[in-house]
């Protein structure tokens, strides 16, 4: 089924159009982005049950952008009435006058604004609202009970469900776009104790869709409990450089944190990303091909039809068989760099600025099987369960945490487990060391991505198993 349009946006559209028309009488370019979003969080654990509306993302409001002379200005609010239109015009006019009549503005060419009209919606199988609060909590309780049925002495098992249904309307002189999308995610955590040691295993499941993701979570719990048993006997890892096989989740973290942030082209404008000087040069093994886009063909959480600047979603080829070919770009940065936007201009919500942001970021599949890759390792590690990562676009440093590593000796897993693990090093060194890539890929989208520790947007990442030489601590 398709996500249905927002009655609020449909009802308010004539008023947004009126605001736009008034702006276009004064300015070369004007646009209105309006948003209506509902976000809800549910959780079940030994500590109780929680149901809450997510007020960070569950908002409605609008932002207007105008272009004047050589730059742009924005105004956002959560209420628009006809009586407010002159006030908004006055405020924007005052700001632009302050900036333009006394001082030079940074030269930003006007947006292309090629004609475009569509209304599109994402699909879902199970509507969380139809399932109801009680239905969702019931399914989360069942996940928790499943974990306990597999290991009765768990300290706790918790299950969380987040669903975000959003509707966006974009209007400009030549564009009239509407989209209705829903993503949902389910995260499960199991905890156990051995002596003084407390360990946990966390896994998230996510989709562009509805409550059907809860069914997928159930299938992952047996493996989580087995992993938890292994983790209870883990040891610290001696620092050093190891031959590693990374699971798709760990690959995803490397793709996103180590490389993705470095090709956000708003950083190119300000000369803050080392990647800018590497366009056209090898940055990874020829086995590596990387994309980012909201239109990938996968049902990932950051899939949409147009971005927050009214540009259609894309799927940008970033690394082509080891060669860095392009970055991702918002509209203003594209204008300044003399290139085209890639559909990556995203806002946390309507009242935040748009920046170049990742969407669904991934490496493509190779030709080896995961089994062949493990069998090829004489003395190394299988890295699993990423926990956090840091971007460093200026210097292309990498610092990622993974929860544990399984020892591989003579091509076989020995059962020995090390935890926790820190990946460090120089990104191109790591990517150039990739010597095998698996023939299957997995994507996951349990988290959000921040820019400068704020401006959170939903993203997914992933890829195949990769084999590489990695410095670990």
């Amino acid at each position, binding site marked *: 089924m398709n996500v249905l349009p927002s009655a609020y946006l449909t009802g308010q559209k004539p008023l947004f159009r009126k605001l736009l028309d008034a702006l276009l009488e004064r300015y070369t370019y004007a646009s209105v982005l309006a948003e209506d979003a509902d976000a809800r969080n549910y959780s079940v654990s030994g500590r109780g049950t929680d149901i809450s509306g997510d*007020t960070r993302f569950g908002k409605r409001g609008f932002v207007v952008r105008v272009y004047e002379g050589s*730059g742009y200005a924005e105004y956002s609010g959560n209420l628009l009435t006809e009586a407010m239109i002159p006030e908004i015009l006055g405020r924007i006019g005052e700001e632009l006058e302050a900036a333009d009549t006394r001082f*030079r503005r*940074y030269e930003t060419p006007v947006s292309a604004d090629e004609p475009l009209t569509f209304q599109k919606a994402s699909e879902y199988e199970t509507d969380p609202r139809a399932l109801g609060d009680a239905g969702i909590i019931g399914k989360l309780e069942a996940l928790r009970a499943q974990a306990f049925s597999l290991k009765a002495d768990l300290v706790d098992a918790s299950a969380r469900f987040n669903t975000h249904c959003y509707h966006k309307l974009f209007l400009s002189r030549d564009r009239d776009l509407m989209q209705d999308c829903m993503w949902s995610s389910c995260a499960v955590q199991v905890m156990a104790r051995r002596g003084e040691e*407390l360990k946990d295993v966390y896994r998230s499941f996510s989709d562009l869709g509805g409550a059907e993701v809860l069914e997928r979570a159930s299938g992952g719990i047996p493996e989580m409990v087995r992993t938890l048993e292994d983790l209870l006997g883990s040891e610290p890892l001696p620092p050093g450089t190891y031959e590693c096989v990374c699971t798709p989740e760990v690959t995803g973290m490397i793709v996103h944190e180590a490389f993705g942030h470095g090709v956000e082209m708003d950083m190119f404008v300000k000369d803050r990303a080392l990647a800018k000087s590497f366009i056209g040069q090898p940055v990874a093994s020829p086995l590596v091909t990387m994309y980012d886009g909201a239109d990938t063909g996968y049902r990932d959480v950051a899939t949409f039809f147009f971005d927050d600047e009214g540009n259609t979603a894309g799927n940008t080829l970033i690394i082509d068989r080891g060669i860095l070919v392009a970055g991702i770009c918002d509209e203003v940065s594209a204008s300044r760099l003399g290139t085209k936007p890639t559909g990556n201009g995203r806002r946390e919500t309507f009242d935040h600025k748009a920046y170049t942001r990742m969407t669904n970021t991934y490496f493509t599949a190779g030709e080896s099987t995961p089994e062949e890759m493990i069998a090829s390792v004489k003395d190394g590690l299988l890295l699993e369960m990423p926990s956090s*990562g*840091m971007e460093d676009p200026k210097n292309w440093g990498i*610092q990622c*945490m993974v929860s544990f590593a399984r020892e591989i000796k003579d091509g076989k897993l020995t059962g020995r487990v090390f935890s926790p693990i820190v990946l460090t090093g120089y990104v191109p060194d790591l990517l150039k060391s990739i010597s095998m890539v698996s023939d299957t890929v997995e994507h996951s989208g349990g988290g959000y991505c921040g820019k400068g520790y704020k401006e959170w947007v939903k993203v997914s990442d992933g890829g195949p198993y990769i084999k590489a030489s990695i410095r670990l601590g």
Partner: protein
Amino acid sequence: MDYNAFKELVVRAAEAAGLKDYELYYSAAESTSVSTYKHAINDFSSTLEGGVCFRTLVNGHMGYASTESLTEDEAEAIVKRAAENALLLETEEPEFLGEGGGTYRELPKQEEALPDAAFLVRSVLQCEQMLYDEDPAVIDGSGATAGTESSTVAIYNSRGIDLQDSRSVAFFYAEAVVSDGEKMSNAYEVKTGITEEHMKEAVSKSVEEAKQKLTAEVAPTGSAPVILSPGAMRSLLAVYSSAFSAENAQKGLSLLAGKEGTAVASPLVTLVDDPFYPESLFPRAFDAEGMPTCTKAVIENGELKTLLYNLKTAAVAGRKTTGNAAKAGYAAPVGIRPFTFVLKPGDKSEAELLAMADGGVYVDELQGTHAGANPISGDFSLQSMGYLIRDGKKAGAVKDFTTAGNFFELLKNIRALGNTAEKDKFAGVSGFAAPAVLADGLSIAGK
């Protein structure tokens, strides 16, 4: 329609509906910001947002409704929706509204008008030029942002509470990007109050820090004495302040649950929550339930004196609220947060602390707390920048190392505190202040 006129309509509608227990919460925020790039205005943006939340107790259940539209029709509609929502609820948890009659501290009025758009533009360009003039190593990409923020909060209820507070602030930040021709680094400094003197200070500090980072080498690995700078300690306090929430404690999400009255930190540690901290930009005399706020020791000489409570969690614990109810927005549920969390300074000068930590590492900055710090277990492993300490002085700058430890163990292992607490420069209602801290038991992992 303004809030006061809307309030009158809501009260009339609530009385007409026969409601006896209800509350109207209003919040509005307005902001403007302007930024530069290459000696010119980069962008200009402004935001105006606000709304009200009406909640009412019907048969022991609290129904909520909110709206951003302050009109006569909506005044009646939110009363009706909230009453209907209350009837749909099945929860057995008790709900509370604040009682009037409390004593509220009088806060100084803000007299100074906020700067206009033209002043912001002039200031931000001047600040950027000062960055370029400060040092030839400063390159394009350096820039400045200036802006204003205003917020108003009001709360009215049927039990005698009728409060309003408005605050505003003007701010700017200077960000320096420097290069030595091969490497690049950046640093920024935030200040409130847009004056030439503040700009000079911010420019000088950001350029100096950026240049120091440029020379940084990778730190060695090992266990060594560690000094956390005021900023690094504030980062940890910000992450782990949630452990002091009674709501988290009662949900089993805090290791401090059940520890009130016991030692949880070194005797050197006194941690205070202060709604009236002199440097706070948004001091508050009342919390989100309309209850009076107060300054209180959360940890005193190492002993956990109290967690932070709102009305509901206080009732569960059988004690009084500490006036820490908070809402993340007008439509958000009532939660808990600190105002300004202040780790009280000790008696050591920076030179004395450095002498005590000879051979160790001064951690100036911790990054990635959103991902590398577990707010429940207290474990953290964070990318860091800082200095080696040699001969009792800050020696070479070091970068790309991990500082790892456990927050709750850190509190117990504090060996000395600097004699000056520094507050975060541009915080909202919740802020943090701390001195430099010398602690044992932290590990450093670099090359």
